[in-house]
């Protein structure tokens, strides 16, 4: 009896690429927080170019292929433009702390509110439904322009876009879940000079967005215990504050990095902060700002109704005061505290007057 032996067909196998790979022998090990982005900055894979010459979109540390297409017209390609020291940490933290507006908010705790209070809450929600995604649209635009060599910093911005999508959605949900509805838009983030959208330099954008805009919102969210009318709202503000803290930290740490790397840009940054402070005090982007219509709504919520407006307004002033204090702390942490001592900034005076 004879058996036919099937001879498998032989194919050509190009293995020439094996001779031209990135650095070999990387053996990153998970630590107590798992295998983090910081853990894989091993060997040359941790080397960050001061200026990125990556024009092809390759992952940092991959071997260069001479015939690769130069598709990456990255306008953000110097480290100091976008970098911050704790990007890996912020990214991993963001992944650990994602939440769901569908299931993590105790929506069942919503109960009918007096008309004026519901209206105030819905007005605030309309404002946030409108402005939350400025922090999605704008970082997205910069992500598309940033070299993948700075993936850690870029990834933090990507998660910010995700966070803001969730914020936009949680405020819409709240507005439509308790007998109210959306109200009139504010136009706070429209296309005017000095707005977050239109900044043409990443750091200028980050100062407007992360330091000024989100800084003010963060302080406010942190005090959501005071104006949230039920557990659902309090949870919503608390979870949003947690996210905003990361976004603000990005801005602070980036400014700190830039100030150290390019001290010659100090005066320029101070000019951005001059403008940011104007926004903080009276800009429409600060929902608790002196000229913002939302301030009235906040006072209604803080007081527990229109009839307690004065009481609510007092609490609003506490929020404003805390916004100023936290802002100063952040700017000091970023390395620009001198402006509060040399009389350049109006904030210390404002702060003192608010006591």
């Amino acid at each position, binding site marked *: 009896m004879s058996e036919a032996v099937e001879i498998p067909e032989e194919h050509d*196998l190009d293995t020439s690429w094996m001779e031209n790979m990135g650095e070999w*022998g*990387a053996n990153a090990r998970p630590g107590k927080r798992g295998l983090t982005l910081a853990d894989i900055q091993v060997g040359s894979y941790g080397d960050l170019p001061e200026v990125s010459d990556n024009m092809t979109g390759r992952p940092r540390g991959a071997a260069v292929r001479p015939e690769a297409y130069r598709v990456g017209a990255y306008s953000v390609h110097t480290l100091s433009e976008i970098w911050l020291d704790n990007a890996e940490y912020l990214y991993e*933290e963001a992944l*650990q702390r994602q939440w769901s507006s569908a299931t993590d908010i105790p929506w069942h705790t919503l109960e009918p509110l007096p008309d004026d209070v519901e209206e105030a809450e819905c007005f605030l929600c309309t404002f946030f439904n409108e402005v939350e995604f400025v922090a999605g*649209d704008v970082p*997205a635009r910069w992500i598309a322009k940033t070299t993948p060599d700075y993936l850690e910093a870029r990834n933090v911005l990507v998660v910010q*876009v995700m966070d803001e999508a969730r914020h936009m959605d949680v405020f819409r949900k709240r507005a439509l879940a308790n007998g109210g509805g959306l109200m009139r838009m504010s136009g706070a983030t*429209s296309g005017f000079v000095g707005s977050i959208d239109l900044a043409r330099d990443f750091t200028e954008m980050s100062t407007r967005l992360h330091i000024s805009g989100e800084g003010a919102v963060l302080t406010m969210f942190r005090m959501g215990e005071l104006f949230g009318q039920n557990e659902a709202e309090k949870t919503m503000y608390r979870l949003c504050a947690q996210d905003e803290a990361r976004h603000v930290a990005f801005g602070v740490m980036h400014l700190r990095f830039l100030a150290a790397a390019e001290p010659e840009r100090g005066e320029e940054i101070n000019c951005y902060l001059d403008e940011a402070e104007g926004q903080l005090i009276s800009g429409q982007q600060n929902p608790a700002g002196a000229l913002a219509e939302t301030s*009235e709504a906040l006072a209604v919520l803080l007081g527990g109704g229109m009839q307690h407006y004065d009481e609510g307004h007092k609490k609003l002033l506490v929020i404003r005061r805390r916004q100023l204090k936290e802002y100063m702390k952040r700017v000091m942490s970023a390395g620009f505290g001198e402006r509060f001592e040399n009389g350049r900034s109006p904030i210390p005076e404002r702060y003192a007057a608010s006591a």
Partner: protein
Amino acid sequence: MSEKLPTEAAVTAAGEADSKTIEPVHGVHKPKYDWMGLTNEWGVRVKPGIHGLRLGDLNVGIYGEIPEFWEDQTRRPRGALSRPGIPPLPYSLRYKHEMWADCAADLYEEAIQRRWIPATEVPWDSLEVLPDDVERAVCQICTELSQCANTELEIIAYWQDRMSYGYFEVKQFLATVTFDCARHMEVLRKRALSNGGGLGIESRGRVNRMILESSGGWTEAVVYLYLMRGTYITRLLTGLLSSAHNDAESFIYSHMLEDHARHLTYGYDHLKYAATHRKGSTAIMRTLLTIGEGHMADELKDGVVRSAMAIIFGGGIEGGRTRGMKRYLLLVREFLEDYLALCRWLGIDREETLHPMLKSYLED
């Protein structure tokens, strides 16, 4: 990770002290309440269902009216009252058919429910030393897929801020997609750098270039990104999953596949929406595909991915030459069958006119 962020810990400590001292303040301005009573529709009370309060549940009354053209170039939320005198922003995609898919809101919620964390959920301890040729092949595929995810992220980020606010469900869903892409790049990099290997050689990037150059419209980008490249990537990931070497790889590929399936669901659905709501769009898609197939064929011919996949399938270089390559060629064939079926579903018949180099994969 429960501690406060280093920069914010000091800041809050400072602020908290302040909020305890609520002092009476005199001279409160009389409120004007100009904002009160201004609404298009009041009395909405959407209740959470068994899956919580979902984005799609909110589409009631005027809040669910999604017009074919979105006039407003501001960030006015859909259903909110507009305000005169607001300067526009550069939202250039203003027709519903330029981005819409009915499934976007549900996919958005699904993406959030199914999020995963590479650092702590992948069983990294299950990695074991692999033969050098296999490790090199895995690392090469990680490099290639990472670059594909990078292209996906860059093209979405490019379009996202041009999409009108009226179609926010799509903007929000795409935020989950770029998040997925960042996570895919992260997890592939982690896999490549944690088992004695490293990254491979970069992609020549022919299809990446095709996707990034499709700047005429988002729909056109979707044709290349999802219908063509995405359909192929599904087959790659399915193949990798079936030959995973350990639990870590199984976890990575299966979760990537799950994410990718959402992206494709949106992509296919959007193309179908465009095909049925915009006159002439299938003809444009056909033209794009005619050109795109040539680039895809060229990329498939490139030796790097095909040999790396063959080595993984064959368990090494030797097996790669025979059964490994046979299986890879079958994978390409299955991809092309999927692709042709999808084209048919969209009303674009590519069977007869398929690029000859692609056709050759379907023979024998």
